[in-house]
């Protein structure tokens, strides 16, 4: 059995960076994203290791998400408790990733990604960064599996449209 400290160490090592990225989907600046993630790991330390080891990744993303939303509520940025309300709100953050100094250098797709609504961005991140299945994404976000499928499909379709010239060029080669 993995000890509590070993579990947390492993979780920090494997998921910290990705979780911070995920948290920026909601809180938009890195400092607060780190706070959220730190909070998540503290909560992980309070858990019985046996209970969370299996679904560790889903657990981390779920808690991280809830912490982020809590933080937003506390900061009164979220006037309504209605989740749909903030889903409609487009992020105003200029650039969630301060690590990339030069926007020009960023992966092109990541720039287009920012044009997507927040809820589509979130599922795309959970799918391609965290490599979660539809079911796991549904567990984390509370959406239904078919909702997840729809959001991912819509998001990807939008990206396809946005990047049509690049994709065509790729296929012609």
């Amino acid at each position: 059995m993995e000890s509590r400290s070993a579990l947390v160490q492993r979780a920090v090592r494997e998921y910290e960076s990705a979780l911070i990225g995920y948290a920026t989907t909601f809180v938009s600046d890195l400092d607060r994203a780190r706070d959220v993630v730190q909070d998540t790991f503290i909560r992980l330390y309070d858990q019985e290791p046996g209970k969370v080891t299996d679904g560790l990744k889903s657990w981390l993303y779920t808690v991280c998400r809830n912490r982020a939303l809590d933080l937003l509520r506390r900061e009164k940025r979220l006037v309504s408790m209605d989740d749909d309300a903030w889903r409609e709100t487009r992020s105003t953050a200029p650039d969630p990733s301060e690590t990339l100094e030069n926007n020009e250098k960023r992966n092109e797709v990541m720039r287009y990604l920012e044009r997507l609504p927040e809820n589509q961005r979130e599922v795309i991140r959970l799918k391609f960064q965290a490599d979660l299945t539809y079911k796991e994404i549904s567990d984390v976000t509370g959406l239904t599996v078919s909702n997840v499928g729809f959001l991912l499909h819509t998001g990807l379709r939008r990206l396809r449209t946005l990047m049509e010239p690049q994709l065509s060029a790729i296929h012609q080669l």
Partner: protein
Amino acid sequence: MKPDPHDETLTAYALGELPAEATEAMARKVWQDPEAQRALADVRVLSEMLTAGFAAETHAGFTTQFDSPASPSFFEAGDAPAGLLAFEMDDVVTPAGLGEDGEFDDDDEKVVRPGFFRRSAFWLVPGAAAAAAFLVWMGHPSRTGSPGMATSEPGGRTVFPVKAPEPPEPAVARKKYQRPDPEEIVETLLASDSDRLKTSPMPVLEKELPAPPAVLPVPPVVAAAPPVVRPAPALEPPPRPTLDELLKKGSVAPGSVAATAGGRPATFVERFNHAVSASRLGGTTPAVFVDAKATPIFRVPDRADSLSYAQTRWCLRDFKVMPPPGIVRLEDMINAFDYKPLQPKPGTELGVQIETASCPWDEQHQLVRVSLHGRTMPVEALPPCHTTFLIRVVDTPGNARSLLLFWEGLQSLLGLLRSEDTVALAVWGDVDGLVLPPTPGSEAGSIRSAAEGLLQGGDGPAGAKGFDIAEKAARMSYDEQGINRIVIVTDGPLGAGESDFQALLDKVKYNAAAHVTTSVLGLGQARFEGSQLTDLAEAGRGQAFRADSAAETRRLFSEEWLSPTEPLARNLDLQVRFNPDRIRSVRPLGFEPAESSDGAAPSGSRRIRYGQQVTALYEVVPANTPPSWKDGVTNRFARLADSMTTIGQSGGPDWISVGLRYDTPVGESRWFIYAADLEDNSWRDASPDFRLSAAAAGFGLILQQDTATTGVTCRLVRDLAEPALATDPHHLRQEFIDMVKQADTLRRKSVD
């Protein structure tokens, strides 16, 4: 019905989210519909870009500052939970080199103190460190090779490097292969082998053949039916010696080792050792006895690699030297043979057999043989088998040898094919092209004559690449009810005409989803980068094979070849447990023991296919020989329970218990427990298969120069294997005896 490219189901399919049946249905639909294929390709490209894009994001966290190699022991020390305790315990965390007061020594040092941790620690990190990390990433060499990653042009624009259009091939590259004289092959083989010894660590045969004669000798056209594809009449190749003759010629006579190895056999061994240690295989450690209490559970993987056996044979047969002990793997020796198949009970896919007898080289010990058998499919029930061979043909002697091996195997396969089976031949390498379109097995003559022309290369549309050609051929013979397989036959490289390995993997995966599996056959001393061989077979839902002698290729292209490629069982877990109350210590002969009994599943694909066998041997020392053993209790092959909970518990009445767990192809899980007692059997009365596997292990121990095992001699090994020689369809066992004899001669010489 056509799949709608705007349908969510297609996206789910592209992302691997559909259940198995829906995936198959969708794969078939997509197969027919170019628009859906385009949508699919788009989603896959986007997936790659997104995955790469997210992976490139690095966010320095609150612990990242300690992750530098300069302070490696920070988190490992003590039981403190990863620095989180730092602020919970209200304690000062002071990495090496910081002041006691916890204040900043200077801006570069990372100091953590209570209260400060929560916010302030972060501002030290992100700017410089993350930017530096990004710059390092930008310059990392691995980026340039991976598809889907963005690179920056000098102008600052970001582009995706995808497969660049290949420059038109120069006319020289399309030259036809001229079949060299077999004598020359042998000569060059010998020369190149000594060349190979001079280069290390992993030499590649690149020696040019002497220029072929301007006119090939003996041109009369004998074949009544000219090969199907090539319009030009085939030239009758020069008389073809059998491969064994060739290999015999290729071998060095005993005593001429000095000539081959440049007069320094010892140096050869050193160089060989060096080469081997640099290769993937690595060295092996001699088998040791372990306390049965310490390691009560041994896990048996789903297969052994045959490379070690091939290298051992290569040393003994071709070079007449003892192989370096480090390359010998006992499990490879034991699993080099086909044993008598055991049919599992009706309704089950796998069967386990346990046989025990006294240990031939130490009668105080017992030998336990555990073998796992996959069910075989009766010949009449076999579905039609459509095989497209994609064969690497280049102008090197190593390749010429591998083609001879393939030729031997194909001869054997042609004898088995039914009229509903087809074979297609495509080549890649110097020339990419189709040599033979799918041809029914009843037309063995045309297949044979086309294969003879393989060395002359094939014809194909200009610019078409090997794998695409093979894929087209496989489509021509596609049979929904049958087995559709592409087999990449190679003497080393795995490109199959693709620009890089990843591109090939993608195509292979695409075909696998549409029920065309891809397998790989490595011939001769083929070496593969890392796990490429198995990765490719895995992606293609096929198998990875190796063969380095005519006997091995014949064995490969036997009835088993026609069996379905789908695994019979997945997620295999086979555990062997020895009762520590009754057995003092155990020595696994091959298959390293599992590090712990914590339930971690063994690595590998963990799949068993039709007719597959895995055999493991254990040498055990009984504790205090209790009466029940001497009383001669018979083996009990019993399915005891439907759970494996008793496995792993101490005590219990049985000496050995074997737990078997697997999932059936329809996803049903099955558990079995088999138990056996040690018997007062002599190895002399044991089954021929038991004796043969003991012989293989014993020979391995000799070659490993195992000092703990003094009782095993070459004489004993031959005695052990003797009864098994009665059944030897592919001459593999005789080949083994020849190796033993050779080793014996060499040992005697070294003693003299």
